[in-house]
C-alpha cells in the first residue's frame, strides 16, 4: 500500500504546488486590503469597459462557433466529401497554434498593406485595433471546441435513427431538428461552455490585434496585464483576475455537470 500512498500524495502534492497554491493566493491578494479596496479596484471605468468589451466579443463569437461546430461536425461525419480529413485537421489547428502566431497572421492579413487590409482600408472599415479584429482573433482561438465534442457523438450514434425517421416520412430538416440535434445536445452544451471559457480568457492573439487602449480596445485579460505592469495598480490586476478566476471556476462547475450528462449517455469522446 505504500506505493499507492506515494503515488497519491506525490501527485496531489504536485497539484497543490503548481495549481492550487498560486490560484488560492490571488484570491488572498485581491481581498488582502479588504472588500472595499477590491470593489474600488474592480469598478473603475477602465475595468468595467474591459469587462463589457470582453463580453461583447464573446456574445458573438460563441454562437457563431457553435453553429459552425454543428455544421462542421455533420459535414465531417455524415457527408463523405473528399477533403473532410483535411478539414478535420484544420479544425484542430487552433488548439496547437501559439496565440502570437494567430495574432500575427491576422495582423498581416488586415494591416493596411495586407491582402484584405488594403481593400477594407479603402472602404473605411477598421479591423485591427478595433472590435472586428478582436472578434476575429477570439473566433479563431475558440473555434474547435464544439466540433470536437460533436464529432465523436455523431460517430457513435450512427445513422440508424435518422434512417428510421426517413422511412417514417420525415424530411431532412425535421430529421435534424427532432432526431440529430436532441442526440447531440449535451455535447453541444459542453462544447459551448468550453468555447465561452476560451473566448473570455484569450490574451495573446488579442494582444497583437487590439492595441490595448484602456477604455477603448482593451479586453479584460489585457486589463490584468496593464494593471500589473503599471505597478501602482496591482490590486486592480488581482481584482480583475479574481473576476476572471471566478468565471473560470463557474466554467469548471458547468463542465462537471454537463460532462456528467454527456457521460451518462455514454457519449464522451476521448
Amino acid at each position, binding site marked *: 500500500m505504500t506505493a499507492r500512498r506515494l503515488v497519491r500524495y506525490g501527485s496531489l502534492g504536485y497539484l497543490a504546488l503548481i495549481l492550487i497554491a498560486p490560484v488560492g493566493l490571488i484570491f488572498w491578494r485581491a481581498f488582502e486590503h479588504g472588500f472595499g479596496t477590491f470593489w474600488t479596484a474592480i469598478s473603475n471605468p477602465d475595468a468595467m469597459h474591459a469587462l463589457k468589451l470582453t463580453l461583447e466579443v464573446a456574445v458573438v463569437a460563441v454562437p457563431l462557433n457553435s453553429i459552425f461546430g454543428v455544421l462542421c461536425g455533420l459535414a465531417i461525419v455524415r457527408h463523405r466529401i473528399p477533403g473532410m480529413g483535411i478539414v478535420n485537421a484544420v479544425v484542430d489547428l487552433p488548439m496547437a497554434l501559439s496565440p502570437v502566431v494567430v495574432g500575427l497572421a491576422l495582423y498581416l492579413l488586415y494591416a493596411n498593406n495586407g491582402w484584405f487590409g488594403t481593400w477594407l482600408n479603402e472602404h473605411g472599415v477598421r479591423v485591427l485595433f478595433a472590435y472586428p479584429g478582436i472578434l476575429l482573433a477570439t473566433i479563431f482561438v475558440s473555434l474547435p471546441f464544439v466540433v470536437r465534442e460533436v464529432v465523436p457523438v455523431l460517430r457513435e450514434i450512427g445513422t*440508424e*435513427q435518422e*434512417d*428510421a425517421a*426517413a*422511412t*417514417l*416520412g*420525415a424530411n431532412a430538416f*425535421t430529421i435534424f431538428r427532432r432526431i440529430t440535434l436532441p442526440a447531440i445536445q449535451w455535447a453541444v452544451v459542453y462544447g459551448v461552455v468550453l468555447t465561452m471559457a476560451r473566448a473570455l480568457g484569450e490574451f495573446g492573439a488579442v494582444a497583437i490585434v487590439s492595441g490595448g487602449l484602456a477604455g477603448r480596445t482593451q479586453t479584460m485579460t489585457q486589463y490584468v496585464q496593464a494593471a500589473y505592469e503599471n505597478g501602482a495598480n496591482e490590486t486592480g490586476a488581482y481584482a480583475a483576475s479574481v473576476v476572471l478566476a471566478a468565471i473560470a471556476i463557474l466554467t469548471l462547475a458547468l463542465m462537471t455537470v454537463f460532462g456528467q450528462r454527456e457521460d451518462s449517455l455514454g457519449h464522451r469522446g476521448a
Partner: protein
Amino acid sequence: MAIEAHNVTKRFGDFVALDDVSINVESGSLTALLGPSGSGKSTLLRVIAGLEVADSGDVFISGKEATALAPQKRGVGFVFQHYAPFKHMTVWENVAFGLKIRRRPKDEVGKRVEELLELVQLGGLGGRYPAQLSGGQRQRMALARALAPEPEVLLLDEPFGALDARVRVELRQWLLRLHDEMHVTTIFVTHDQEEALELSDSIVVMNKGRVEQIAPPGQLYDEPANEFVMSFVGPVNKLDDAWVRPHDIELRHEPNGSTREAQIERIVRLGFETRIELVRDDGERLYAQLTRNEAEELELERGDIVYVRTRKEKTFSG
C-alpha cells in the same frame, strides 16, 4: 404486384453486393430474403426502402416506379435489426412520430397509438423510455412505430437476430398472427432457414449478390434448384455425388441388396428426433434423422453395424 425489382445491381467499391437481382413480391404476402452474411439480402431490402440507391435497375412499389424516390416518399415501413429507437422519446412518442409529422389531428394520433400499443402488447407502457424496455418489447415498439403511418409495405431487417432463442420463437409466432390480421405486404431478411421456412409464403434464396431460387417453402425444401439451396435450406448429407436429407436415410439391421454397411458412431437424442451419426464402410461420414419412436423400435446402440440406404436423393449437374 406490390413490389418489383428488375435487374438491380449495387456495388460498394469493389465489392458487388447485388448482381442483376430481380424479384416480384405479391401484394399481401409474407416473403423472406434468405441467405448467408454478405449475400446481399439486407442491401436489397435497403434498396427497396430507398436507404441505398442502386447503381442500375428499377424498383417498383405498388405499380409505381420508385427507383428515384427518397425513402420518405415510398410509403414503406422499416424495422431495423437493432430497432433504432428514438432514445430521447417515450414509447408513445416513438410510435406517434410518423403520424405527428404528417400533421394528423391529435385525437386521431392518440387513438391510433393506443390501438397499436395494444396490438403489440405494449399497452400501458407508453410512458416508458426505450432504455427501460426489454429486447423483445423494443422490437415490438419498432414494429408498432413502422406500422403507425399505414405503410403499403413493411420491411424487416433481421428483426429477431438480436434476441435470445425463446423470445425469438415467441415473436415469430406473433409476427405471423399480426400479418394475418393486417395483411400488409411484408418482406423480412433472415439468415435463419428455419425462420424463413416457418413464416413465409415465398422465399428468395440469395448468395453472393445473386438470387439462387424463389419458391414457397415446401417447394424450396423438396425441389432445390442447386447445391447451394439444398445445403442452405435444411440439413443435408453429401454422399459421393448425391445430396441426401438425413430423414431420407433408412436404417436396417439386415442387409437388403441396395444397402451399404455402416457403423454407428454416436446417437444424439434431441427430444422428438434422434440423430444417428454413422461411418459407412468406405469411410464416408453421414447422419440420419429418425423419430424417437423409429429409433426406439430399432433398439440402436453405439458401435452397432447397420445397413443404410437412401429413400430419395438429388444430384445437380455441373
